[in-house]
C-alpha cells in the first residue's frame, strides 16, 4: 500500500468512524429524548383522557338531568306508564347520543329499558352507580356485554326521588376518533377490557391495526403502569396503559395510548438525510484533501526515489531542487552530497583501474579501449601497434623479486616514452608494453622499434647490478592486420613471439606464419567430428624391399576428406590434434584401421608390414601397448607386421615413462622405427636405449640425392652406420630411378617415394599392385 493510499484510507476512515459515532450518539440522544417526550405526552394524555371523560359525563348528565325535569316524563314515571316512559327515554336518548336508556327503580330494578333484551334484565348491574345517583348524577365507564359504555345515572324527582334514569353511551371507535379530532388523544389509542377469563380484549381502537394493546397486555392481567417501549407491527411505540375509572361492578378497562416513535422521529429523518449528504461531501472532501496532502508528501519522496535509482545507474547529477524544508529537504540535500561523493570516488577508482601502479601507464584494457576509440574516430587512416617485450623480465622477477622488476619496468617506461613521443604508451602485461602510433605506417613503426631496442638495450643499472632485459618488438599494422584494437593487440603479440625467437628482435606480423589463425581453431573442433563421421581415410604408400625388388611393406598415412575444404594433409591437422588432445583418439583410429586392413589383405594372401606413425603424445599413453596387443589379437595379425614410427624429437628428452611404453610395444614383438632421421638432434647414445629396429632417412636428403655428392655421402653413411648398429634403413622421398638405383647400391633396405607410388587408398592400392613390376605374393615371412 503506498503512503498516499494509506494516508487517504486513514483520514477517510477516521472521519467515517467519528461521524458514525456522532451519528449513533445523536440518534441515541434524540431517540431517548423522543422516548422521554413520548412518556411525558402519554402521561398527560392519560390524565387528559380521564378528565375528558369527566367532561363528557358532566355534559351528558346535564342533558339527562334536563330530561328528568320534563314534567310529562316525570308524570309518566310517577304514574308507572311504562310505554310512555320508554318512548320518551328513546326520544331523549337519541338527542344525547345514548345507545340505551333505562329507568331504574329506587330498589335497583330496571323499570323501563329502551333496548329489547331477552330475557329482560331485572336488576341494573352497576349498583354503585345507582347508589351514588341517589344523591347526585353518577357516571362511569362500564364493560357491558363485552362493549365499553359510558353510563350516566341521574336521579328523577317528582318532586321526591322516584327513580333513576341511566343513559348508556357507547365508547367505540367513533367516540375515540371524535376525541382524537379534538386533539385530546394520541393517534394510537385503544380500549381494552378484561373479559371473564382475565384476558384483555381490545374493544375499540382509534388507529386501526396498530396491535399495540395486544402487545402491551399480552397474556397477563397485569399491565405496566409506566410508559413502556414496545414494538408492534414493526413499529416502535412508547405505550401507556391507563386504567379508566369504571363502575365497581364492571370489569377493568384500560386505555392503551401509543406514542409512535417513528412518527416522532419523522422530523429528524430529514435531518438525518441532510447529515448523510454532508457526510458524503465530507468523505469526498476528506479523500481529496488527503490525496492532495499525501501527494505533497509523496511526490518529493518519489522524485528522490527516482534520483536514487538514477544514481544507482551511474547518473550523478544532483537531485532536483525540492522546495520543501524539513526532513524531505534534508534527504534531498543528503542525496545530492552522496551522489557527488560517489562520483568522486568512482572517478578515482576508474583512474586506478585504467592505470598501472608501477609505471603510471594505462593498463592494457584501458589502452585497448582508447585505441579502439581512436580507430573509430580516425577510420581509414592507418596506425601501428608495437608490442614491446622485455624477455628476461620473468627471469629477473624470479631471481630478484617484484620490487626490482617494478622499478625496472618504471625505468623502461620512461625510456620508451622518450622515443615514442606523442604515441600512446601502455603496459600490456607484466613484461610487455604497447605503443600505438597514430597514422604511422610500417616504416615508421620499424624505425621506432629499432630506436626502442636501442634505448632498452642499455642495461638497467641499480646499485652494483647491471641487468640486460633482452627487448623484442612485434608490430601489427592498422588496417592491414586488423581493424579492431583487440585483433591488433593479438597480432602484435604473435609478431612479438616471432621476434623473440628470431635473430633480429623486431618482427612485423606475418599472417602466413601465424599458427594462431582463426581457421585452425575451427578445424580443431571439426577434427573430433571427422573421426566420428568417417571423414578420415587411411592411404597406404608402398615400401619397396630393395634386396628382393618386391613391395613388402606400406606406410599408413591418414587423410582428412573435409566436406568443405577438400583433402587436408596430415601436416595440417596432426599438430592440431596434438594440441587439442585428440591425437590419442586419432592414433587409435589409425591403429585400428591399419590393423584391420592388414588382416583384410592377409585374407587375400597379401602380407605387408604396416608402418604406422605415432605422435610424441601417444607415448604418454600407458594404455597404448595393451590396446595395440588387443587390436592385433582381434584381427589375428602378427606383431611383426606392425612397425611403429616415431620422430627423433618425439623421444628425445622424454621421461622414462615414454620409454617404458616403447619397450612394452617392443616386447609385444612390434618393431619401432625412427622417422625423419638425420635432421633432428640425433643422439646415438640415446638411441641405444630404445628398442629401435629401423631408421628412416629424412626425405630432405633424398631430394638432392641425384645431384649432390654431400647428401649421397650422408645417406650412405647413415645406411652403413645403421646397418652396423643392427638397424634396418629405409629411404623416404625417392623421386627418381637414379636415387633408387643408388640406394640399391649402397644396400639400403627399403625405399619409399613418389617414384614408386604415392600413398593410395586401399582400392587404388590393389590396382597399383596388380600393375606393378614390384608385385610379389606373400613376400613377407
Amino acid at each position, binding site marked *: 500500500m503506498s503512503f498516499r493510499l494509506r494516508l487517504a484510507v486513514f483520514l477517510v476512515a477516521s472521519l467515517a468512524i467519528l461521524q458514525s459515532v456522532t451519528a449513533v450518539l445523536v440518534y441515541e440522544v434524540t431517540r431517548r429524548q423522543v422516548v422521554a417526550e413520548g412518556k411525558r405526552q402519554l402521561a398527560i394524555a392519560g390524565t387528559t383522557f380521564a378528565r375528558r371523560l369527566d367532561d363528557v359525563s358532566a355534559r351528558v348528565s346535564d342533558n339527562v338531568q334536563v330530561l328528568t325535569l320534563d314534567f310529562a316524563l316525570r308524570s309518566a314515571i310517577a304514574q308507572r306508564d311504562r310505554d310512555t316512559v320508554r318512548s320518551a327515554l328513546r326520544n331523549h336518548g337519541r338527542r344525547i347520543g345514548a345507545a340505551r336508556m333505562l329507568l331504574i327503580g*329506587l330498589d335497583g330494578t330496571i323499570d323501563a329499558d329502551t333496548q329489547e333484551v331477552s330475557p329482560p334484565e331485572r336488576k341494573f348491574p352497576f349498583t354503585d352507580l345507582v347508589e351514588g345517583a341517589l*344523591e*347526585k348524577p353518577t357516571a362511569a365507564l362500564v364493560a357491558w356485554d363485552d362493549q365499553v359504555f359510558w353510563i350516566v345515572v341521574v336521579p328523577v324527582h*317528582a*318532586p321526591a326521588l322516584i327513580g333513576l334514569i341511566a343513559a348508556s353511551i357507547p365508547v367505540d371507535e367513533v367516540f375515540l376518533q371524535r376525541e382524537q379530532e379534538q386533539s385530546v388523544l394520541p393517534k394510537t389509542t385503544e380500549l381494552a377490557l378484561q373479559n371473564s377469563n382475565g384476558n384483555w380484549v381490545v374493544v375499540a381502537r382509534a388507529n386501526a391495526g396498530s396491535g399495540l394493546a395486544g402487545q402491551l397486555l399480552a397474556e397477563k392481567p397485569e399491565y405496566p403502569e409506566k410508559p413502556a417501549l414496545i414494538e408492534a407491527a414493526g413499529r416502535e411505540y412508547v405505550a401507556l396503559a391507563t386504567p379508566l375509572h369504571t363502575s365497581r361492578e364492571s370489569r377493568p378497562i384500560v386505555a392503551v395510548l401509543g406514542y409512535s416513535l417513528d412518527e416522532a422521529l419523522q422530523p429528524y429523518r430529514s435531518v438525518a438525510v441532510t447529515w448523510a449528504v454532508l457526510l458524503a461531501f465530507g468523505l469526498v472532501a476528506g479523500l481529496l484533501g488527503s490525496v492532495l496532502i499525501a501527494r505533497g508528501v509523496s511526490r518529493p519522496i518519489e522524485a528522490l526515489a527516482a534520483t536514487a535509482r538514477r544514481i544507482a545507474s551511474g547518473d550523478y547529477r544532483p537531485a532536483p531542487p525540492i522546495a520543501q524544508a524539513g526532513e524531505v529537504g534534508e534527504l534531498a540535500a543528503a542525496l545530492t552530497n552522496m551522489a557527488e561523493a560517489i562520483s568522486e570516488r568512482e572517478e578515482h577508482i576508474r583512474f586506478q583501474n585504467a592505470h598501472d601502479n608501477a609505471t603510471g601507464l594505462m593498463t592494457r584494457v584501458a589502452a585497448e579501449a582508447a585505441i579502439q576509440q581512436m580507430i573509430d574516430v580516425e577510420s581509414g587512416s592507418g596506425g601501428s601497434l608495437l608490442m614491446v617485450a622485455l624477455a628476461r623480465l620473468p627471469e629477473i622477477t624470479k631471481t630478484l623479486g617484484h620490487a626490482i622488476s617494478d622499478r625496472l619496468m618504471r625505468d623502461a617506461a620512461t625510456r620508451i616514452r622518450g622515443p615514442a613521443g606523442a604515441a600512446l604508451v601502455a603496459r600490456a602485461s607484466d613484461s610487455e608494453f604497447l605503443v600505438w602510433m597514430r597514422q604511422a605506417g610500417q616504416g615508421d613503426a620499424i624505425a621506432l622499434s629499432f630506436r626502442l631496442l636501442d634505448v632498452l638495450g642499455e642495461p638497467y643499472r641499480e646499485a652494483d647490478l647491471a641487468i640486460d632485459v633482452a627487448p623484442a618488438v612485434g608490430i601489427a599494422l592498422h588496417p592491414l592486420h586488423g581493424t579492431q584494437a583487440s585483433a591488433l593487440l593479438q597480432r602484435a603479440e604473435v609478431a612479438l613471439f616471432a621476434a623473440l625467437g628470431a635473430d633480429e628482435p623486431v618482427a612485423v606480423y606475418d599472417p602466413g606464419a601465424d599458427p594462431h589463425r582463426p581457421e585452425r581453431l575451427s578445424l580443431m573442433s571439426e577434427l573430433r567430428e571427422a573421426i566420428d563421421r568417417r571423414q578420415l581415410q587411411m592411404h597406404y604408400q608402398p615400401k619397396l624391399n630393395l634386396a628382393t625388388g618386391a613391395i613388402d611393406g606400406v606406410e599408413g598415412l591418414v587423410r582428412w576428406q573435409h566436406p568443405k575444404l577438400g583433402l587436408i594433409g596430415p601436416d595440417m591437422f596432426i599438430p592440431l590434434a596434438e594440441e587439442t588432445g585428440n591425437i590419442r583418439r586419432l592414433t587409435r583410429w589409425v591403429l585400428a584401421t591399419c590393423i584391420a586392413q592388414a588382416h583384410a589383405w592377409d585374407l587375400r594372401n597379401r602380407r605387408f608390414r604396416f608402418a604406422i606413425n605415432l605422435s610424441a603424445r601417444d607415448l604418454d599413453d600407458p594404455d597404448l601397448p595393451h590396446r595395440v596387443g588387443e587390436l592385433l589379437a582381434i584381427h589375428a595379425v602378427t606383431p611383426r607386421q606392425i612397425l611403429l614410427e616415431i620422430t627423433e624429437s618425439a623421444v628425445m628428452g622424454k621421461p622414462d615413462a615414454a620409454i617404458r611404453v616403447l619397450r612394452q610395444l617392443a616386447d609385444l614383438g612390434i618393431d619401432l622405427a625412427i622417422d625423419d632421421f638425420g635432421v633432428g638432434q640425433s643422439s646415438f647414445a640415446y638411441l641405444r636405449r630404445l628398442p629401435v629396429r629401423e631408421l628412416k632417412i629424412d626425405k630432405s636428403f633424398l631430394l638432392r640425392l641425384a645431384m649432390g655428392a654431400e647428401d649421397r655421402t650422408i645417406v650412405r653413411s647413415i645406411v652403413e652406420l645403421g646397418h652396423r648398429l643392427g638397424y634396418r634403413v629405409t629411404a623416404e622421398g625417392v623421386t627418381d630411378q637414379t636415387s633408387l638405383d643408388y640406394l640399391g647400391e649402397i644396400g639400403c633396405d627399403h625405399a619409399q617415394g613418389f617414384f614408386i607410388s604415392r600413398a593410395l587408398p586401399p582400392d587404388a592400392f590393389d590396382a597399383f599392385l596388380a600393375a606393378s613390376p614390384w608385385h610379389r605374393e606373400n613376400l613377407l615371412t
Partner: protein
Amino acid sequence: MRWFRFATAVVYICAPSAPAGAAGLGVRISDTRGNAVSDAVITVAPQAAGSVQPAPTPATRVIDQKNETFIPYIEVFRPGDKVVFHNSDNTRHHAYSFAPARQFEFVLAPGESSTALQLDKLGVIAVGCNIHDQMITYLYVTDAPHVARSGEDGIAQLSNLAKGEYDVRAWHPQLRPGAGVDSQRLTIADATELKGLTFTLSLLPDPRLPPDRERAGY
C-alpha cells in the same frame, strides 16, 4: 362517652318542660355523620291496637310559597285535615303531586291561594313546583297518637305518654331508599319517666339545595 353526654343533654332539655305526672320522650335524630337532623318526623304509636284515641277536630293548614320555597318543608296532617297552598311570591307557582295518597295540580298566580284540599289517606305526599324544581314540601298524613318534628337541633320532644309499649318511628324526606332502621320499641313503665331515644338516619342531600354549588348562580 358520647352517649353519656347525649343522655345528660336529653335530661337537661326535657326536664324543665315536662309536665308532672306525664312521661316524656326526647328523640335525637342525627345523620350517619353525627350531624343533627331537622325536619324528621317521629311518630309514637302504642303496640296494643285497642287504645285508639278519639279523632281530633279536622284542621286546615296552609303551605305558603315564599321566595320560591314551600314553607314549611314538612307539615303533619291527620286524616281529614285540609291543606291550602298560598302563593306569597311575585311569580306563578305550579304545585303538583303525583303521590298515590293524593294527586293534584294547582297553578297559583301571585298572592293566590288554592282551594282547601282534604287529605284522607295516610301517607306522604311530596309536593313540588313544576316551575321551580328546587321547591318541595312534604305533607305527612298520619294517625299516630304522638307526632313530633325535630328542630334545628335535631331533637323531637314528645310528652304525655301513658304507660305502655310503643313503636317509635322516624321518617325524613331525604331518607335513603331501603336503608337504615326507622323503628324502635319504647316501653314507658312510669308516668313520670323521661326517655331518650336516638335515631341515626342515612339521608340523601337536601333536594331544595342545588346539587352543584358551582351552578348556583342562576
